């Protein structure tokens, strides 16, 4: 029977984990249209479900899974879902993404989003399919890794379940614990800890109840066009070397963070290069569901097992710690996967702690730069919160608060989220993007490195002329994350807003226009900002650590005497302040960076 709704289900599922009760509720059509799905719908739902101010790990803290209009259409790279919560690491919005079968089965289970609240009495697994919702106590799964949990659930209850689960770090509420599905992670800012605080070991979904498509023929044409474009030069890097192809280029351009961001390059970087591993036959390939790009490259370990090989993992567990042995770095990455730890925060916090030890600010015997054995020993300790692992499990900001003595100046974070593998002083537009990011230092939400490396701006300086383009990239990211498509197809698309509107028209029958989609990106960004303001955002958070500014002085700035080979000039703080002011202005916020929601938005969040 034709429901009159195309492309989406038009409803959400709420589950109270304290009681096991569940209920469905309609999504107002105006909301579904305005915020699209995925991250857009998810952040609106999180705002609606959450108290005005709350603790990230409290029972009442919502955990939202939001599915996307394009998921299930076989449009290339569309098998993605959003996971949203307040981050226990940052105290701000955590809008994460997760890929592959879970995104398809989650939508196929019959809802556009799932909002969890409350906490289970015992370690449990939540099962959702079109037949209903069941919360089962599964204490026997506690202590297992996420892959073991996934395998156990499939073996016991059937292979048609797609599972997201947490490892030991999530159980122990490490604030940068991941949530895992099929070896992929909603990795950053601690979704795993939020699930752990709810004693929810896993969420299993299954189903094939995809909503009807308004214009299947038009969608098929678009699908074929995207397929062709996806195999062109716009995705060549991802198809050939994967993201690790960044590493040597970044090293050659002073962008590769090394030694806790004290430098942007190192002569030993070749040891971590994708190119060398391919030539040595140490790489296999894999893909997410519904993806033809296949960016996933897997390192073949000495024992024949494979480990996912991503630029961010290798930078964070390699160059940032002065570890240049790929066998060690991949072993560390596999451990992070096993225990369910975000690699960037793990490496970033370790690098910071090591510098504290070197400066005599922290006593942690065993923590040493460049020590692979130390790294492999540290990861289980962090996940289990044992020994010095308890300190690293704080994250770099909280650890700096504990250490004091000026250490915050070189703690590599924004809003508590550790900085990814792009040296902010070598990519200064991105540096600003990380500083104002609603999630903290998240390179997936800003994308301003595209500007820095466009040839149109001087990446070693900041000025106000480029800020409109930077805002535009943020809005584009919000739309891509709401449709959802992988950002790796962005160069395969012609105009994101035209192409996206065309896809949504074919899928939903709603006459989306490119301008409407562009406005949606802006509105979604406002929602994120508002969430943060409700949780206590302050203007002082929208900055970078002092290390990255030109006048960093004695605290290890890039221009300090003694800064090593590969050191780079810092950011001009005056130019940074002006550029940030311009950013607030273009966002339509107050000079202090505050967003004032209109009555329509406020009304949409009640009732």
């Amino acid at each position, binding site marked *: 029977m034709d429901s009159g709704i195309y492309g989406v289900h038009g409803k959400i599922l709420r589950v109270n984990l304290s009681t096991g009760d569940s209920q469905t509720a309609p999504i107002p059509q105006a909301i579904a249209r305005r915020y699209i799905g995925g991250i857009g719908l998810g952040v609106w739902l999180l705002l609606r479900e959450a108290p005005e101010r709350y603790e990230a790990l409290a029972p009442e803290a919502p955990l939202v899974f939001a599915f996307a209009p394009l998921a299930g259409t076989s449009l290339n790279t569309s098998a993605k879902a959003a996971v949203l919560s307040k981050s226990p690491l940052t105290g701000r919005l955590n809008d994460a993404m997760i890929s592959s079968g879970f995104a398809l089965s989650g939508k196929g289970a019959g809802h556009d989003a799932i909002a969890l609240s409350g906490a289970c009495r015992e370690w449990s697994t939540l099962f959702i399919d079109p037949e209903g919702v069941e919360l089962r106590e599964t204490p026997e799964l506690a202590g297992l890794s996420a892959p073991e949990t996934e395998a156990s659930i499939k073996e016991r209850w059937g292979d048609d379940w797609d599972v997201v689960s947490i490892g030991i770090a999530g159980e122990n509420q490490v604030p940068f614990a991941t949530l895992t599905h099929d070896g992929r992670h909603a990795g950053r800012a601690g979704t795993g800890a939020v699930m752990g605080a709810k004693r929810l070991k896993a969420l299993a979904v299954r189903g094939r109840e995809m909503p009807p498509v308004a214009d299947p023929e038009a969608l098929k044409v678009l699908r074929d066009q995207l397929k062709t474009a996806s195999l062109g030069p716009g995705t060549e*890097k991802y198809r050939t070397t994967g993201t690790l*192809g960044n590493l040597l280029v970044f090293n*050659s*351009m002073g962008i590769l963070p090394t030694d806790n961001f004290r430098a942007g*390059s190192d002569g030993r970087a070749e040891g971590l*290069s994708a*190119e060398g591993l391919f*030539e*040595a036959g140490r790489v296999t390939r894999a893909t997410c569901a519904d993806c033809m790009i296949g960016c996933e490259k897997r390192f073949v370990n000495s024992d024949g097992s494979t480990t996912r090989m991503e630029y961010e993992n290798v930078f964070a567990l390699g160059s940032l710690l002065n570890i240049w042995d790929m066998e060690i770095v991949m072993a560390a990455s596999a451990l992070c996967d096993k225990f369910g730890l975000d690699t960037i925060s793990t490496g970033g916090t370790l690098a910071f702690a090591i510098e504290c030890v070197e400066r005599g600010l922290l006593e942690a015997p065993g923590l040493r730069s460049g020590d692979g054995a130390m790294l492999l020993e540290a990861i289980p300790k962090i996940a289990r919160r044992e020994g010095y692992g308890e300190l690293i499990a704080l994250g770099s900001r909280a650890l700096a608060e504990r250490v004091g003595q000026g250490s915050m100046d070189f703690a590599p974070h924004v809003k508590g989220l550790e900085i990814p593998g792009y040296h902010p002083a070598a990519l200064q537009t991105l540096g600003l993007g990380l500083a104002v990011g609603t999630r903290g230092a998240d390179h*997936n939400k800003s994308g301003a490195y595209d500007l820095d490396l466009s040839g149109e701006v001087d990446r070693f300086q900041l000025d106000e002329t480029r800020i409109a383009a930077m805002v535009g990239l943020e809005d584009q990211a919000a739309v891509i994350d709401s449709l959802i498509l992988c950002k790796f197809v962005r160069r395969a698309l012609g105009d994101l807003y035209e192409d996206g509107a065309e896809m949504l028209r074919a899928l939903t029958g709603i006459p989306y226009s490119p301008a409407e989609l562009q406005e949606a990106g802006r509105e979604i960004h406002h929602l994120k900002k508002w969430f943060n303001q409700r949780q206590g955002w302050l203007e002082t958070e929208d900055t970078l650590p002092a290390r990255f500014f030109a006048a960093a002085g004695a605290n290890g700035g890039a221009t300090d005497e003694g800064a090593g080979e590969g050191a780079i000039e810092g950011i001009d703080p005056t130019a940074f302040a002006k550029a940030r002011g311009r950013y607030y202005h273009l966002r339509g916020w107050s000079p202090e960076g505050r967003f004032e929601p209109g009555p329509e938005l406020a009304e949409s969040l009640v009732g």
Partner: protein
Amino acid sequence: MTAVAKPQDDRKTGRKTGGPAGVAGGAAGGISPALLARLAPETPVKDAAALRALLVARGFCAGDAPAISLELYGGLRLRTGCEVLPLKAGTVGAALEALRRIFPAAERLLPADGELGEYYRFSINGKTVTTDLGQPLAEGDRLILFSASVGG
């Protein structure tokens, strides 16, 4: 410049290859053994200068242009087996043209000139980024050719 031919086996071990290219200013790196075998099967090419001279002699680049080095990464490096190509080129476009002629296999990865800037970028000495094929080069410049898809 100190670019030298680097045995294939060294690259397979993943050992480091010289200085932090772009910052310390001393790019060293491997030159495709296949290229050397193709260009000079009888005469060993001992260093970058010799290879550059050979490429000029074979008509791949102009003898009166500045001596530069073109660094290749990712798919281009894998396809050509070449980390650093010593060339003579007065502009970015001339270096690109030389690359295309020396390695026809790279052509499949490189869009036409008019589209190149959409997908690839050049960096001169690890600092200036450009898509302008007319950008002049100077003696000793390091030219880095990299994918515009830098996220991940």
